[in-house]
């Protein structure tokens, strides 16, 4: 165990000596995909709750496609499938983009988390208290002001508990990255397994690393929920 850690600890955490590996790669995938997915999902969630069909229907379709298929399949399509298409090979930009395992993995992760996050936010927008909206309208709020100052701040706050769940699930989802040759934590665990033939230790170390990252994420969310969701807590106690 200690020998394994001494020999592979660095590879588990950040590099195998030639490139980034392990925790560094996993966190990079997690942060980049969550960040971009979050930003895109805000306008999409508003479109999703729109009463106008030509706004809500395409978003529904997008979210149905990405929530209705396993992430693993999406990753295989993006990494192995798309790069074989002629129009991708003929385009300089597309062939540069899809050649990289990293970009394919990030694309799949971003679209996947974006679909789930959109639904989380859309649910919270729908549940916004009608009274708040009527009051804002009575004060003459424009639609832009209504969304930026009343609906979205409240909906995003109320989404936090389910969004924190999504973040943890995304952490787990990054373990599929090796399908596209991206050397994340699990890839190093498999290396250690095939070098030492001690799967319990190899995968046990990976499990502990994931647990530590989850713990940090959960406590970050707990702290921010305390701060941002204070208004929803009972007054007594």
């Amino acid at each position, binding site marked *: 165990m200690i020998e394994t850690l001494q020999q592979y600890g660095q590879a588990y955490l950040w590099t195998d000596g030639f490139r980034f590996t392990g925790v560094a790669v996993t966190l990079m995938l997690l942060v980049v995909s969550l960040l971009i997915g979050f930003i895109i999902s805000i306008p999409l969630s508003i479109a999703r709750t729109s009463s106008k069909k030509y706004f809500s229907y395409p978003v529904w379709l997008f979210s149905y496609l990405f929530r209705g298929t396993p992430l693993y399949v999406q990753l295989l399509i993006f990494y192995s499938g798309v790069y074989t298409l002629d129009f991708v090979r003929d385009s300089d930009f597309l062939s540069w983009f899809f050649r990289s395992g990293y970009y394919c993995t990030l694309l799949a992760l971003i679209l996947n988390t974006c679909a789930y996050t959109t639904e989380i936010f859309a649910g919270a927008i729908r549940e916004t208290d009608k009274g708040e909206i009527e009051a804002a309208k009575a004060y003459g709020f424009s639609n832009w002001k209504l969304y930026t100052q009343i609906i979205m701040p409240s909906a995003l706050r109320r989404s936090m508990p389910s969004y924190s769940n999504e973040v943890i699930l995304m952490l787990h989802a990054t373990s599929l990255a090796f399908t596209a040759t991206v*050397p994340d934590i699990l890839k190093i665990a498999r290396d250690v397994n*095939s070098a030492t033939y001690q799967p319990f230790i190899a995968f046990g170390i990976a499990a502990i690393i994931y647990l530590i990252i989850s713990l940090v994420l959960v406590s970050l969310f707990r702290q921010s929920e305390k701060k941002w969701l204070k208004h929803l807590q009972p007054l007594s106690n």
Partner: protein
Amino acid sequence: MKLKLLPLIIAAVTASSLSHATETIRLGVEPGYAPFEIKKPDGTLAGFDIDLGNEICKRIEAQCTWVESDFDGLIPSLKAKKIDAIVSAMSITPARLKEIAFSSKLYGTPARLVTAKGVDVEPTAASLAGKRIGVFQGTTAETYAKEQWATKGVDIVTYQSQDLVYADLVNGRLDAAFQDAVAADDGFLKRPVGKRFQFSGPEVNDETYFGVGAGIGLRQSDTELKAKIDQAIAAMLDDGTYDKIASKYFNFDIYGK
């Protein structure tokens, strides 16, 4: 009534277990490595290893069942007694011998680079520097490439399966693929998809990495089974059965020196 039946049941069970006194051996295999092990469209297993394994089972009078597994999960499964033997083109290497025992050699397993036609490289770090070479996770080729080449500026990309290595070689994501020469010839070069590709440079035969050839992986404690299997292999080589099976797959001497 129930009590009266009990002795009968016990007798019946004992009798049936006695009549099936032949031992059952579970053979572990990763069926993605033509021509050694392949899965046919109807789901059954075929290939040189499968034929050899079945022939050996017949000779040692054992009942064999094939168990499919990831390649890098085979040795842990063997040690955990989920399977009793590995028949999956596994090379007999010093590193693996520390963990498990092997039967005597089944066939030779040199490794060789595959590239697009017209691209000529040598299996040396100098010739491969700056190139992307694909290898299959957990194989001897991966260990060799990582230790001999990755340290000297060659970009080694590891894949979850050999098929994914070929797919990315065809796609152009890789400059070369490095794997068992026979498997590459049969599983890739001789197929329509491999038409634009060729072997590049000589075979790599470093015994420290590739061992003396492939054997059947066994637990170190199962000395009796090893003795029986070794005997069966020797007998097959002796009476021509081995050559008959081999000629179904290869037009050259796969056993090697």
